[in-house]
């Protein structure tokens, strides 16, 4: 069983340590851009500024034309329509999909590397630690596959078969 104590580890974690700082800095740029497009630019935002109470949830979620999510044009477009508008031009779609997949990779590496650091601080038993760390990276890998696949096929009209395997 691999021993993770200082000085006895077979592999240096220096790259991950360094990359944590690089990815963290890049994530600030990704997050600001993502936030601007998604939440603050009224022509592109796909999340409006109104709260919806649970009694009107069903009506709003049907995507009726009078949805009350608080978009600038009075809810004529549903959230799905607004995202599809962003993806209408193929060049723009490729740019945004590439942006979001990169964002996903950096966020997953940064987040789950951080989580494995925390696990290493508290889980002293070598076997338990190895299991927990492996589980973290498996979860990160699963999220990458689901997230990247969903991003790529979004708006491509491939039919329900293309997404039937998604949980």
């Amino acid at each position, binding site marked *: 069983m691999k021993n993770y104590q200082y000085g006895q580890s077979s592999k240096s974690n220096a790259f991950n340590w360094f990359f944590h*700082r690089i990815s963290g800095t890049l994530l600030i740029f990704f997050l600001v851009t993502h936030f601007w497009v998604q939440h603050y630019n009224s022509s592109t935002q796909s999340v409006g500024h109104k709260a919806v109470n649970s009694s009107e949830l069903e009506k709003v979620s049907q995507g009726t034309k009078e949805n009350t999510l608080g978009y600038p044009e009075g809810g004529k477009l549903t959230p*799905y329509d607004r995202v599809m508008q962003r993806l209408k031009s193929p060049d723009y779609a490729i740019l945004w999909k590439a942006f979001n997949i990169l964002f996903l990779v950096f966020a*997953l590496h940064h987040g789950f590397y951080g989580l494995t650091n925390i696990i290493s601080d508290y889980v002293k038993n070598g076997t338990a630690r190895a299991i927990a760390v492996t589980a973290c990276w498996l979860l990160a890998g699963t999220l990458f596959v689901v997230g990247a696949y969903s991003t790529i096929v979004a708006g491509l009209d491939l039919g329900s078969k293309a997404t039937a395997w998604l949980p």
Partner: protein
Amino acid sequence: MERVKYKLSPHMIAWLFHRLSGIAIVLYLILHVWGLKALAQGPEQFNHLIAKYHLPAFKIGEILLLAACAYHAFNGFRIVLVDLLGWSNKQKKMWFVAAGLALLIVIVGGYPSLMAVLG
């Protein structure tokens, strides 16, 4: 087994907030990626998900998420400056700047969400 003792100093609070906000953001990231696969599944699923994000509980969660992200980003950038540029002599001053900027972002950015719930 030797136990590490934590003393609650300002440095420890800066570190603890960073760690807790980090855990919160990872939990949100899992939910976010898992939820947004609805975009590939079709309009019904996606519109239903986004409608749920407008429930008051989520609007409050949005403010907490913004607080976690803002603190983690500014304090994280402070750590990068200390680690990669060696600005350790300025690190304490930088923490107050980071915390101040985070607070400002939470007030300005959280206002629409708060008003959505109250108004």
